[in-house]
Protein backbone atom coordinates (compact mmCIF):
# COMPACT_ATOMS: atom_id res chain seq x y z
CA UNK A 1 0.00 0.00 0.00
CA UNK A 2 1.16 3.54 -0.74
CA UNK A 3 1.94 6.04 1.95
CA UNK A 4 -0.71 8.76 2.13
CA UNK A 5 0.51 10.82 5.04
CA UNK A 6 4.08 11.03 6.13
CA UNK A 7 4.80 12.68 9.45
CA UNK A 8 8.44 13.38 10.25
CA UNK A 9 9.98 14.71 13.40
CA UNK A 10 6.91 16.70 14.42
CA UNK A 11 7.24 18.54 17.75
CA UNK A 12 4.91 20.91 19.51
CA UNK A 13 5.32 22.65 22.85
CA UNK A 14 2.76 24.63 24.82
CA UNK A 15 4.76 26.70 27.26
CA UNK A 16 6.55 24.17 29.46
CA UNK A 17 4.53 21.23 28.23
CA UNK A 18 5.84 19.14 25.39
CA UNK A 19 2.75 17.85 23.64
CA UNK A 20 4.62 16.20 20.78
CA UNK A 21 8.26 15.19 20.93
CA UNK A 22 9.66 14.47 17.47
CA UNK A 23 6.90 12.18 16.27
CA UNK A 24 7.38 10.29 13.03
CA UNK A 25 4.89 7.93 11.44
CA UNK A 26 3.38 7.01 8.10
CA UNK A 27 -0.27 6.45 7.36
CA UNK A 28 -1.04 4.29 4.36
CA UNK A 29 -3.60 4.90 1.66
CA UNK A 30 -6.96 3.29 2.54
CA UNK A 31 -6.10 2.02 6.00
CA UNK A 32 -7.96 2.49 9.25
CA UNK A 33 -5.35 3.97 11.58
CA UNK A 34 -5.69 4.66 15.29
CA UNK A 35 -3.80 7.01 17.60
CA UNK A 36 -4.17 5.46 21.04
CA UNK A 37 -2.98 6.76 24.37
CA UNK A 38 -3.98 8.19 27.73
CA UNK A 39 -5.16 11.78 27.92
CA UNK A 40 -2.32 14.24 27.51
CA UNK A 41 -0.25 11.87 25.37
CA UNK A 42 -0.32 14.25 22.40
CA UNK A 43 -2.71 12.36 20.17
CA UNK A 44 -5.22 15.19 19.94
CA UNK A 45 -2.49 17.72 19.16
CA UNK A 46 -1.30 15.51 16.33
CA UNK A 47 -4.87 15.26 15.04
CA UNK A 48 -5.28 19.05 15.14
CA UNK A 49 -2.00 19.47 13.27
CA UNK A 50 -3.29 17.17 10.53
CA UNK A 51 -6.55 19.16 10.38
CA UNK A 52 -4.69 22.47 10.30
CA UNK A 53 -5.78 23.96 13.63
CA UNK A 54 -2.32 23.71 15.14
CA UNK A 55 1.08 24.21 13.64
CA UNK A 56 4.07 22.14 14.76
CA UNK A 57 7.16 23.93 16.07
CA UNK A 58 9.32 21.58 14.05
CA UNK A 59 8.97 18.71 11.60
CA UNK A 60 7.10 18.11 8.40
CA UNK A 61 3.76 16.63 7.35
CA UNK A 62 3.34 15.51 3.76
CA UNK A 63 0.28 14.30 1.94
CA UNK A 64 1.10 12.40 -1.25
CA UNK A 65 4.54 13.86 -0.96
CA UNK A 66 3.35 17.49 -0.94
CA UNK A 67 3.80 19.78 2.07
CA UNK A 68 0.49 19.79 3.97
CA UNK A 69 1.50 22.41 6.51
CA UNK A 70 1.62 25.13 3.83
CA UNK A 71 -2.10 24.59 3.14
CA UNK A 72 -4.57 26.48 5.37
CA UNK A 73 -7.17 24.39 7.20
CA UNK A 74 -10.00 25.30 4.88
CA UNK A 75 -8.14 24.15 1.76
CA UNK A 76 -6.92 20.79 3.05
CA UNK A 77 -8.41 17.60 1.60
CA UNK A 78 -8.71 16.47 5.20
CA UNK A 79 -11.91 16.47 7.22
CA UNK A 80 -12.46 16.04 10.91
CA UNK A 81 -15.33 14.52 12.81
CA UNK A 82 -15.27 16.47 16.07
CA UNK A 83 -15.61 14.81 19.42
CA UNK A 84 -18.50 17.18 20.22
CA UNK A 85 -19.69 16.68 16.61
CA UNK A 86 -19.76 20.51 16.25
CA UNK A 87 -23.01 20.44 14.29
CA UNK A 88 -24.21 23.93 13.46
CA UNK A 89 -27.24 24.35 15.75
CA UNK A 90 -28.88 26.94 13.51
CA UNK A 91 -28.92 24.70 10.44
CA UNK A 92 -30.96 21.64 9.53
CA UNK A 93 -29.31 18.27 8.99
CA UNK A 94 -29.20 18.71 5.22
CA UNK A 95 -27.84 22.26 5.53
CA UNK A 96 -25.12 20.99 7.83
CA UNK A 97 -24.17 18.29 5.34
CA UNK A 98 -24.39 20.64 2.35
CA UNK A 99 -22.21 23.28 4.07
CA UNK A 100 -18.89 21.88 2.92
CA UNK A 101 -20.05 21.29 -0.64
CA UNK A 102 -21.40 24.84 -0.88
CA UNK A 103 -17.96 26.11 0.05
CA UNK A 104 -16.60 24.23 -2.98
CA UNK A 105 -19.08 26.21 -5.09
CA UNK A 106 -20.49 23.05 -6.66
CA UNK A 107 -23.66 23.26 -8.77
CA UNK A 108 -26.80 23.12 -6.66
CA UNK A 109 -28.04 20.00 -8.37
CA UNK A 110 -24.89 18.10 -7.53
CA UNK A 111 -24.95 19.30 -3.92
CA UNK A 112 -28.51 18.11 -3.50
CA UNK A 113 -27.70 14.74 -5.06
CA UNK A 114 -24.63 14.15 -2.94
CA UNK A 115 -26.34 15.24 0.26
CA UNK A 116 -29.25 12.89 -0.23
CA UNK A 117 -26.89 10.08 -1.20
CA UNK A 118 -24.81 10.42 1.92
CA UNK A 119 -27.86 10.78 4.17
CA UNK A 120 -29.13 7.58 2.60
CA UNK A 121 -25.80 5.91 3.38
CA UNK A 122 -25.91 6.83 7.04
CA UNK A 123 -29.65 6.09 7.26
CA UNK A 124 -30.86 9.60 8.02
CA UNK A 125 -32.72 10.46 4.80
CA UNK A 126 -35.94 10.80 6.79
CA UNK A 127 -34.41 13.35 9.18
CA UNK A 128 -32.98 15.74 6.58
CA UNK A 129 -35.01 18.72 7.74
CA UNK A 130 -34.54 18.28 11.47
CA UNK A 131 -32.33 20.50 13.60
CA UNK A 132 -29.42 18.85 15.46
CA UNK A 133 -31.09 19.28 18.85
CA UNK A 134 -34.02 17.17 17.65
CA UNK A 135 -31.78 14.14 17.10
CA UNK A 136 -30.48 11.43 19.40
CA UNK A 137 -26.77 11.14 20.17
CA UNK A 138 -26.27 8.34 17.69
CA UNK A 139 -28.11 10.25 14.97
CA UNK A 140 -26.06 13.37 15.61
CA UNK A 141 -22.94 11.36 15.16
CA UNK A 142 -24.16 10.04 11.84
CA UNK A 143 -24.78 13.61 10.69
CA UNK A 144 -21.28 14.61 11.74
CA UNK A 145 -19.91 11.65 9.86
CA UNK A 146 -22.02 12.37 6.77
CA UNK A 147 -20.94 16.01 6.83
CA UNK A 148 -17.30 14.98 6.82
CA UNK A 149 -17.39 12.17 4.23
CA UNK A 150 -19.64 14.00 1.77
CA UNK A 151 -16.58 16.13 0.94
CA UNK A 152 -14.79 12.94 -0.16
CA UNK A 153 -11.62 13.91 1.70
CA UNK A 154 -8.32 12.08 1.20
CA UNK A 155 -8.15 11.65 4.94
CA UNK A 156 -10.92 11.52 7.53
CA UNK A 157 -9.99 12.29 11.11
CA UNK A 158 -12.22 11.08 13.94
CA UNK A 159 -11.73 12.56 17.41
CA UNK A 160 -12.92 10.08 20.08
CA UNK A 161 -15.78 9.12 17.76
CA UNK A 162 -17.62 6.83 20.13
CA UNK A 163 -16.97 8.42 23.51
CA UNK A 164 -20.25 10.35 23.70
CA UNK A 165 -22.44 7.34 22.96
CA UNK A 166 -23.90 4.82 25.36
CA UNK A 167 -22.67 1.26 25.31
CA UNK A 168 -25.25 -0.29 23.00
CA UNK A 169 -25.16 2.45 20.36
CA UNK A 170 -21.39 2.37 20.57
CA UNK A 171 -21.18 -1.26 19.50
CA UNK A 172 -23.53 -0.53 16.64
CA UNK A 173 -21.58 2.51 15.47
CA UNK A 174 -18.35 0.58 15.69
CA UNK A 175 -19.57 -1.88 13.07
CA UNK A 176 -21.02 0.93 11.04
CA UNK A 177 -17.76 2.89 10.98
CA UNK A 178 -15.88 -0.17 9.75
CA UNK A 179 -18.44 -0.85 7.05
CA UNK A 180 -18.45 2.78 5.96
CA UNK A 181 -14.68 2.97 5.80
CA UNK A 182 -14.68 -0.12 3.62
CA UNK A 183 -17.43 1.22 1.34
CA UNK A 184 -16.11 4.74 0.77
CA UNK A 185 -12.46 3.74 0.67
CA UNK A 186 -11.30 6.83 2.57
CA UNK A 187 -8.30 6.65 4.87
CA UNK A 188 -9.52 6.98 8.48
CA UNK A 189 -7.48 8.17 11.43
CA UNK A 190 -9.21 7.74 14.76
CA UNK A 191 -8.00 9.26 17.99
CA UNK A 192 -9.03 7.41 21.12
CA UNK A 193 -8.05 6.65 24.69
CA UNK A 194 -10.14 3.48 24.61
CA UNK A 195 -7.98 0.51 23.69
CA UNK A 196 -10.91 -1.76 22.93
CA UNK A 197 -12.20 0.80 20.48
CA UNK A 198 -8.81 1.08 18.81
CA UNK A 199 -8.24 -2.67 18.75
CA UNK A 200 -11.61 -3.48 17.21
CA UNK A 201 -11.62 -0.66 14.64
CA UNK A 202 -8.11 -0.16 13.40
CA UNK A 203 -5.85 -1.94 10.96
CA UNK A 204 -2.84 -0.40 12.69
CA UNK A 205 -2.44 1.40 15.97
CA UNK A 206 0.12 3.94 17.13
CA UNK A 207 0.36 3.84 20.92
CA UNK A 208 1.40 7.25 22.23
CA UNK A 209 2.65 8.35 25.59
CA UNK A 210 4.17 11.63 26.78
CA UNK A 211 4.29 13.10 23.30
CA UNK A 212 6.12 10.12 21.80
CA UNK A 213 5.11 7.14 19.74
CA UNK A 214 5.79 3.97 21.74
CA UNK A 215 4.89 1.38 19.15
CA UNK A 216 3.07 1.13 15.83
CA UNK A 217 1.62 -2.27 15.02
CA UNK A 218 -1.46 -4.24 14.07
CA UNK A 219 -3.75 -4.90 17.06
CA UNK A 220 -2.78 -8.56 17.45
CA UNK A 221 0.94 -7.81 17.27
CA UNK A 222 0.49 -5.03 19.81
CA UNK A 223 -1.18 -7.45 22.20
CA UNK A 224 1.14 -10.39 21.65
CA UNK A 225 4.43 -8.58 21.28
CA UNK A 226 4.51 -5.30 23.19
CA UNK A 227 7.90 -3.72 22.67
CA UNK A 228 7.94 -1.22 25.55
CA UNK A 229 6.97 -1.52 29.20
CA UNK A 230 4.32 1.14 28.67
CA UNK A 231 2.61 -0.79 25.89
CA UNK A 232 2.81 -4.03 27.88
CA UNK A 233 1.08 -2.33 30.77
CA UNK A 234 -1.37 -0.16 28.79
CA UNK A 235 -2.74 -2.72 26.32
CA UNK A 236 -4.81 -5.36 28.10
CA UNK A 237 -4.04 -6.83 31.50
CA UNK A 238 -0.52 -8.09 32.11
CA UNK A 239 1.55 -9.50 34.93
CA UNK A 240 4.85 -7.66 34.92
CA UNK A 241 8.09 -8.79 36.56
CA UNK A 242 11.33 -6.80 36.45
CA UNK A 243 14.57 -8.76 36.79
CA UNK A 244 17.84 -9.90 35.25
CA UNK A 245 18.46 -12.55 32.63
CA UNK A 246 19.91 -15.61 34.33
CA UNK A 247 20.20 -19.28 33.42
CA UNK A 248 17.61 -19.33 30.63
CA UNK A 249 15.03 -17.43 32.65
CA UNK A 250 14.55 -14.16 34.41
CA UNK A 251 15.79 -13.84 37.93
CA UNK A 252 13.42 -11.70 39.94
CA UNK A 253 14.40 -10.75 43.44
CA UNK A 254 12.20 -12.47 45.99
CA UNK A 255 10.71 -14.89 43.43
CA UNK A 256 13.71 -16.71 41.99
CA UNK A 257 14.17 -17.59 38.34
CA UNK A 258 10.96 -17.32 36.32
CA UNK A 259 10.41 -19.02 32.95
CA UNK A 260 10.97 -16.45 30.18
CA UNK A 261 12.02 -16.47 26.51
CA UNK A 262 15.39 -14.85 27.02
CA UNK A 263 17.12 -16.23 23.92
CA UNK A 264 19.35 -13.57 22.39
CA UNK A 265 19.76 -11.59 25.60
CA UNK A 266 23.10 -11.60 27.38
CA UNK A 267 23.34 -13.07 30.85
CA UNK A 268 22.77 -10.37 33.51
CA UNK A 269 20.83 -7.98 31.28
CA UNK A 270 18.00 -6.01 32.89
CA UNK A 271 14.63 -6.97 31.44
CA UNK A 272 10.90 -6.88 32.01
CA UNK A 273 8.80 -10.03 31.72
CA UNK A 274 5.16 -9.70 30.75
CA UNK A 275 2.77 -12.65 31.11
CA UNK A 276 -0.87 -12.35 30.08
CA UNK A 277 -3.36 -13.62 32.73
CA UNK A 278 -4.78 -16.19 30.32
CA UNK A 279 -1.29 -17.69 29.91
CA UNK A 280 -0.84 -18.40 33.60
CA UNK A 281 -1.76 -21.94 34.67
CA UNK A 282 -3.03 -22.78 38.14
CA UNK A 283 -2.09 -26.03 39.90
CA UNK A 284 1.53 -26.41 38.96
CA UNK A 285 4.49 -24.15 38.39
CA UNK A 286 7.43 -22.31 39.83
CA UNK A 287 5.47 -19.99 42.11
CA UNK A 288 3.15 -20.51 45.03
CA UNK A 289 0.47 -18.04 45.93
CA UNK A 290 -2.64 -17.56 48.02
CA UNK A 291 -5.95 -16.84 46.31
CA UNK A 292 -7.20 -13.43 47.54
CA UNK A 293 -10.07 -12.81 45.14
CA UNK A 294 -12.15 -14.67 42.60
CA UNK A 295 -14.37 -12.75 40.17
CA UNK A 296 -16.69 -14.41 37.71
CA UNK A 297 -17.32 -12.58 34.41
CA UNK A 298 -19.50 -15.10 32.63
CA UNK A 299 -17.18 -16.55 30.00
CA UNK A 300 -14.07 -16.18 32.10
CA UNK A 301 -13.07 -15.85 35.72
CA UNK A 302 -10.29 -13.75 37.13
CA UNK A 303 -8.30 -15.06 40.06
CA UNK A 304 -6.02 -12.73 41.97
CA UNK A 305 -3.22 -14.32 43.95
CA UNK A 306 -0.81 -12.87 46.40
CA UNK A 307 2.64 -14.33 45.90
CA UNK A 308 5.17 -13.81 48.70
CA UNK A 309 8.03 -11.66 47.43
CA UNK A 310 5.93 -10.01 44.66
CA UNK A 311 4.63 -6.51 45.16
CA UNK A 312 1.26 -6.64 43.41
CA UNK A 313 -1.15 -9.46 42.84
CA UNK A 314 -0.71 -12.01 40.09
CA UNK A 315 -3.79 -12.09 37.90
CA UNK A 316 -4.94 -15.33 36.30
CA UNK A 317 -7.76 -15.71 33.80
CA UNK A 318 -9.48 -19.10 33.50
CA UNK A 319 -12.24 -20.33 31.22
CA UNK A 320 -15.63 -20.63 32.90
CA UNK A 321 -16.09 -20.51 36.67
CA UNK A 322 -12.85 -20.81 38.63
CA UNK A 323 -12.42 -23.98 40.68
CA UNK A 324 -10.43 -22.41 43.48
CA UNK A 325 -11.58 -20.67 46.62
CA UNK A 326 -10.34 -17.60 48.42
CA UNK A 327 -7.63 -18.50 50.91
CA UNK A 328 -6.43 -21.56 49.05
CA UNK A 329 -2.71 -21.95 48.60
CA UNK A 330 -1.88 -23.04 45.08
CA UNK A 331 1.01 -23.39 42.67
CA UNK A 332 1.08 -21.32 39.48
CA UNK A 333 3.32 -20.98 36.44
CA UNK A 334 3.61 -20.59 32.67
CA UNK A 335 5.63 -21.81 29.73
CA UNK A 336 8.64 -19.74 28.89
CA UNK A 337 7.29 -19.22 25.36
CA UNK A 338 4.11 -17.64 26.75
CA UNK A 339 5.92 -14.70 28.27
CA UNK A 340 7.23 -11.64 26.49
CA UNK A 341 10.58 -10.19 27.48
CA UNK A 342 11.28 -6.51 26.99
CA UNK A 343 14.93 -5.61 27.32
CA UNK A 344 15.04 -2.79 29.84
CA UNK A 345 18.15 -1.17 28.40
CA UNK A 346 16.70 -0.75 24.95
CA UNK A 347 13.44 0.45 26.35
CA UNK A 348 15.16 2.92 28.59
CA UNK A 349 17.26 4.25 25.75
CA UNK A 350 14.34 4.52 23.39
CA UNK A 351 11.84 6.01 25.78
CA UNK A 352 13.79 7.61 28.53
CA UNK A 353 11.35 5.89 30.87
CA UNK A 354 12.56 4.26 34.07
CA UNK A 355 11.70 0.59 34.38
Amino acid sequence: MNTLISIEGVSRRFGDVTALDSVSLDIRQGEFFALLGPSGCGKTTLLRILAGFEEPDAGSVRLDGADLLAVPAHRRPVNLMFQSYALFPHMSVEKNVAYGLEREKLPRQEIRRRVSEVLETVGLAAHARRRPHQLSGGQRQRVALARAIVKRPRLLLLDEPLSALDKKVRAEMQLELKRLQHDVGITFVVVTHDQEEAMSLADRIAVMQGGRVEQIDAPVALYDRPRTPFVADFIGANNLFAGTVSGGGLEVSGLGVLPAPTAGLPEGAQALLAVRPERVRLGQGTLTGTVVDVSFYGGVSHVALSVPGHGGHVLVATQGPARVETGTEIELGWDAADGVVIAADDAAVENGAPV
Partner: protein
Amino acid sequence: MARREPALRGNGWLRLPFWLTYLFLYAPIAVLVVMSFNRNKTPYSWGGFSLDWYGRLAENSSLRTGLVNTLIVALGSTALSTVLGTLLAVGLARHTRSRVLDALSTLPAILPDLVLAIGLLVFYSAIKMTLGLHSVLVAHTVFGMAFVTAVVRARLGHADTSLEEASQDLGATPYTTFIKVTLPTLAPGIVAGALLAFTLSLDEFVIAFFTHAPSQPTLPIVIYSMVRFGVTPEINALATLLLAVSFTVVIVAQRLTKLTEAL
Protein backbone atom coordinates in the same frame (compact mmCIF):
# COMPACT_ATOMS: atom_id res chain seq x y z
CA MET B 1 -37.11 19.76 39.05
CA ALA B 2 -35.59 21.54 41.99
CA ARG B 3 -35.98 19.76 45.27
CA ARG B 4 -37.49 21.54 48.18
CA GLU B 5 -34.90 21.52 50.84
CA PRO B 6 -36.11 20.53 54.26
CA ALA B 7 -33.78 23.18 55.74
CA LEU B 8 -36.08 25.85 54.31
CA ARG B 9 -38.52 25.19 57.12
CA GLY B 10 -36.00 26.33 59.69
CA ASN B 11 -35.59 29.73 58.04
CA GLY B 12 -38.98 31.28 58.62
CA TRP B 13 -37.42 34.46 59.94
CA LEU B 14 -35.78 35.00 56.55
CA ARG B 15 -39.18 35.57 55.01
CA LEU B 16 -39.58 38.94 56.68
CA PRO B 17 -36.65 40.70 54.94
CA PHE B 18 -37.51 38.79 51.77
CA TRP B 19 -41.02 40.23 51.55
CA LEU B 20 -39.83 43.58 52.90
CA THR B 21 -37.47 43.84 49.93
CA TYR B 22 -40.28 43.34 47.44
CA LEU B 23 -42.56 45.72 49.31
CA PHE B 24 -39.77 48.30 49.30
CA LEU B 25 -39.16 47.78 45.59
CA TYR B 26 -42.76 47.91 44.45
CA ALA B 27 -44.68 50.18 46.84
CA PRO B 28 -43.29 53.44 45.38
CA ILE B 29 -44.03 52.26 41.86
CA ALA B 30 -47.56 51.23 42.82
CA VAL B 31 -48.21 54.64 44.39
CA LEU B 32 -47.15 56.40 41.19
CA VAL B 33 -49.33 54.21 39.00
CA VAL B 34 -52.40 54.68 41.18
CA MET B 35 -51.84 58.45 41.40
CA SER B 36 -51.59 58.72 37.64
CA PHE B 37 -55.28 57.83 37.36
CA ASN B 38 -56.32 60.30 40.06
CA ARG B 39 -58.67 63.11 38.99
CA ASN B 40 -57.57 65.42 41.87
CA LYS B 41 -55.04 68.12 41.24
CA THR B 42 -53.56 67.78 44.69
CA PRO B 43 -52.06 64.38 44.27
CA TYR B 44 -52.66 63.01 47.76
CA SER B 45 -56.39 62.46 47.92
CA TRP B 46 -58.41 60.27 45.63
CA GLY B 47 -60.85 62.22 43.42
CA GLY B 48 -61.98 59.42 41.18
CA PHE B 49 -60.61 57.67 38.10
CA SER B 50 -59.42 59.85 35.25
CA LEU B 51 -57.09 59.84 32.27
CA ASP B 52 -56.69 63.61 32.33
CA TRP B 53 -53.01 63.54 33.12
CA TYR B 54 -52.32 61.31 30.15
CA GLY B 55 -54.06 63.87 27.96
CA ARG B 56 -51.93 66.66 29.40
CA LEU B 57 -48.88 64.59 28.76
CA ALA B 58 -49.72 64.23 25.08
CA GLU B 59 -49.85 68.02 24.80
CA ASN B 60 -46.46 68.58 26.44
CA SER B 61 -44.20 69.53 23.55
CA SER B 62 -40.91 69.60 25.47
CA LEU B 63 -41.48 65.98 26.48
CA ARG B 64 -42.13 65.10 22.86
CA THR B 65 -38.91 66.78 21.74
CA GLY B 66 -37.04 65.03 24.53
CA LEU B 67 -38.47 61.69 23.49
CA VAL B 68 -37.47 62.18 19.86
CA ASN B 69 -33.94 63.23 20.88
CA THR B 70 -33.63 60.26 23.19
CA LEU B 71 -34.76 57.84 20.51
CA ILE B 72 -32.23 59.26 18.04
CA VAL B 73 -29.44 58.93 20.58
CA ALA B 74 -30.52 55.47 21.76
CA LEU B 75 -30.92 54.01 18.28
CA GLY B 76 -27.68 55.53 17.01
CA SER B 77 -25.57 54.54 19.98
CA THR B 78 -27.11 51.05 20.05
CA ALA B 79 -26.27 50.48 16.40
CA LEU B 80 -22.72 51.69 16.90
CA SER B 81 -22.12 49.83 20.16
CA THR B 82 -23.59 46.60 18.78
CA VAL B 83 -21.21 46.55 15.81
CA LEU B 84 -18.13 47.63 17.77
CA GLY B 85 -18.97 45.52 20.82
CA THR B 86 -19.63 42.33 18.86
CA LEU B 87 -16.37 42.63 16.93
CA LEU B 88 -14.55 43.36 20.15
CA ALA B 89 -16.07 40.36 21.91
CA VAL B 90 -15.07 38.04 19.07
CA GLY B 91 -11.59 39.53 18.96
CA LEU B 92 -11.11 39.24 22.71
CA ALA B 93 -12.34 35.66 22.83
CA ARG B 94 -10.56 34.38 19.76
CA HIS B 95 -7.66 36.57 18.76
CA THR B 96 -5.89 37.76 21.88
CA ARG B 97 -5.04 36.68 25.38
CA SER B 98 -4.24 40.17 26.61
CA ARG B 99 -5.69 40.79 30.03
CA VAL B 100 -5.16 44.53 29.65
CA LEU B 101 -7.39 44.71 26.58
CA ASP B 102 -9.90 42.53 28.37
CA ALA B 103 -10.01 44.89 31.35
CA LEU B 104 -10.14 47.95 29.11
CA SER B 105 -13.21 46.61 27.31
CA THR B 106 -15.19 46.38 30.56
CA LEU B 107 -13.84 49.59 32.09
CA PRO B 108 -16.71 51.86 30.92
CA ALA B 109 -19.23 49.56 32.61
CA ILE B 110 -17.37 49.66 35.94
CA LEU B 111 -16.37 53.32 35.91
CA PRO B 112 -18.79 55.59 37.81
CA ASP B 113 -20.95 57.40 35.25
CA LEU B 114 -19.97 60.76 36.71
CA VAL B 115 -16.29 60.12 35.96
CA LEU B 116 -17.02 59.13 32.39
CA ALA B 117 -19.26 62.19 32.07
CA ILE B 118 -16.66 64.73 33.21
CA GLY B 119 -13.98 62.96 31.17
CA LEU B 120 -15.98 63.38 27.99
CA LEU B 121 -16.96 66.95 28.87
CA VAL B 122 -13.29 67.83 29.34
CA PHE B 123 -12.37 66.00 26.14
CA TYR B 124 -15.07 67.66 24.01
CA SER B 125 -14.06 71.06 25.28
CA ALA B 126 -10.37 70.34 24.71
CA ILE B 127 -10.99 69.51 21.05
CA LYS B 128 -13.51 72.40 20.89
CA MET B 129 -16.34 70.19 19.71
CA THR B 130 -19.80 71.75 19.77
CA LEU B 131 -22.18 69.76 21.92
CA GLY B 132 -25.38 68.29 20.52
CA LEU B 133 -27.06 64.94 20.05
CA HIS B 134 -23.90 63.58 18.43
CA SER B 135 -21.85 64.19 21.58
CA VAL B 136 -24.40 62.31 23.70
CA LEU B 137 -24.58 59.54 21.11
CA VAL B 138 -20.83 59.00 21.21
CA ALA B 139 -20.82 59.11 25.01
CA HIS B 140 -23.55 56.50 25.22
CA THR B 141 -21.69 54.32 22.75
CA VAL B 142 -18.70 54.21 25.11
CA PHE B 143 -20.61 52.39 27.84
CA GLY B 144 -23.16 50.67 25.55
CA MET B 145 -20.27 48.97 23.82
CA ALA B 146 -18.91 47.65 27.12
CA PHE B 147 -22.23 45.96 27.88
CA VAL B 148 -22.59 44.50 24.39
CA THR B 149 -19.03 43.17 24.61
CA ALA B 150 -19.70 41.59 28.00
CA VAL B 151 -22.96 39.91 26.96
CA VAL B 152 -21.65 38.64 23.62
CA ARG B 153 -18.48 37.39 25.28
CA ALA B 154 -20.50 35.44 27.82
CA ARG B 155 -22.24 33.79 24.89
CA LEU B 156 -18.90 33.14 23.17
CA GLY B 157 -17.63 31.54 26.33
CA HIS B 158 -20.38 28.93 26.08
CA ALA B 159 -20.04 28.55 22.34
CA ASP B 160 -17.81 25.77 21.23
CA THR B 161 -14.77 26.87 19.20
CA SER B 162 -15.15 23.57 17.41
CA LEU B 163 -18.10 25.03 15.48
CA GLU B 164 -15.77 27.54 13.86
CA GLU B 165 -13.11 24.92 13.33
CA ALA B 166 -15.69 22.61 11.78
CA SER B 167 -16.63 25.37 9.36
CA GLN B 168 -13.01 25.89 8.36
CA ASP B 169 -12.49 22.17 8.15
CA LEU B 170 -15.34 21.97 5.66
CA GLY B 171 -13.64 24.53 3.44
CA ALA B 172 -14.98 27.90 4.63
CA THR B 173 -12.67 30.91 4.65
CA PRO B 174 -12.35 32.79 7.95
CA TYR B 175 -14.68 35.49 6.57
CA THR B 176 -17.37 32.98 5.53
CA THR B 177 -17.02 31.26 8.89
CA PHE B 178 -17.63 34.56 10.68
CA ILE B 179 -20.75 35.35 8.63
CA LYS B 180 -22.25 31.86 8.44
CA VAL B 181 -21.32 30.32 11.77
CA THR B 182 -19.99 32.79 14.34
CA LEU B 183 -22.62 35.50 13.89
CA PRO B 184 -25.66 33.17 13.82
CA THR B 185 -24.55 31.33 16.95
CA LEU B 186 -23.95 34.68 18.64
CA ALA B 187 -27.27 36.15 17.50
CA PRO B 188 -29.10 35.71 20.84
CA GLY B 189 -26.21 37.35 22.68
CA ILE B 190 -26.03 40.18 20.17
CA VAL B 191 -29.78 40.82 20.43
CA ALA B 192 -29.64 40.75 24.23
CA GLY B 193 -26.62 43.07 24.26
CA ALA B 194 -28.28 45.50 21.85
CA LEU B 195 -31.47 45.55 23.94
CA LEU B 196 -29.40 46.22 27.01
CA ALA B 197 -27.50 49.07 25.35
CA PHE B 198 -30.77 50.50 24.07
CA THR B 199 -32.58 50.51 27.43
CA LEU B 200 -29.51 51.87 29.21
CA SER B 201 -29.26 54.72 26.73
CA LEU B 202 -32.99 55.47 26.99
CA ASP B 203 -32.68 55.94 30.74
CA GLU B 204 -29.23 57.45 30.94
CA PHE B 205 -29.15 60.80 32.70
CA VAL B 206 -25.77 61.69 34.21
CA ILE B 207 -23.60 61.41 31.10
CA ALA B 208 -26.22 63.11 28.93
CA PHE B 209 -26.49 65.87 31.53
CA PHE B 210 -22.81 66.70 31.02
CA THR B 211 -22.54 66.19 27.27
CA HIS B 212 -25.82 67.51 25.82
CA ALA B 213 -26.50 70.88 24.25
CA PRO B 214 -29.16 72.86 26.19
CA SER B 215 -31.18 73.25 22.98
CA GLN B 216 -31.39 69.49 22.50
CA PRO B 217 -32.22 67.80 25.82
CA THR B 218 -32.90 64.09 26.00
CA LEU B 219 -35.99 62.75 27.74
CA PRO B 220 -34.32 62.08 31.12
CA ILE B 221 -33.06 65.68 31.13
CA VAL B 222 -36.57 66.99 30.45
CA ILE B 223 -37.87 64.76 33.23
CA TYR B 224 -35.14 66.06 35.55
CA SER B 225 -36.17 69.66 35.00
CA MET B 226 -39.81 68.73 35.67
CA VAL B 227 -39.02 66.75 38.79
CA ARG B 228 -36.91 69.54 40.22
CA PHE B 229 -40.01 71.66 40.51
CA GLY B 230 -41.56 69.11 42.82
CA VAL B 231 -44.70 67.06 42.54
CA THR B 232 -46.63 67.30 39.28
CA PRO B 233 -49.33 64.73 38.55
CA GLU B 234 -48.29 64.73 34.90
CA ILE B 235 -45.10 63.00 35.93
CA ASN B 236 -47.15 60.20 37.46
CA ALA B 237 -48.71 59.55 34.08
CA LEU B 238 -45.34 59.73 32.38
CA ALA B 239 -43.88 57.37 34.98
CA THR B 240 -46.66 54.85 34.40
CA LEU B 241 -46.11 54.93 30.64
CA LEU B 242 -42.34 54.55 30.96
CA LEU B 243 -42.81 51.74 33.46
CA ALA B 244 -45.09 49.95 31.02
CA VAL B 245 -42.49 50.30 28.26
CA SER B 246 -39.58 49.14 30.43
CA PHE B 247 -41.51 46.20 31.83
CA THR B 248 -42.55 45.11 28.36
CA VAL B 249 -39.00 45.34 27.03
CA VAL B 250 -37.56 43.40 29.97
CA ILE B 251 -40.17 40.66 29.78
CA VAL B 252 -39.85 40.37 25.99
CA ALA B 253 -36.07 40.21 26.32
CA GLN B 254 -36.39 37.50 28.97
CA ARG B 255 -38.69 35.48 26.74
CA LEU B 256 -36.42 36.00 23.79
CA THR B 257 -33.32 34.73 25.55
CA LYS B 258 -35.25 31.73 26.89
CA LEU B 259 -36.49 31.02 23.38
CA THR B 260 -33.09 31.26 21.81
CA GLU B 261 -31.41 29.29 24.56
CA ALA B 262 -33.62 26.36 23.60
CA LEU B 263 -32.08 26.52 20.15
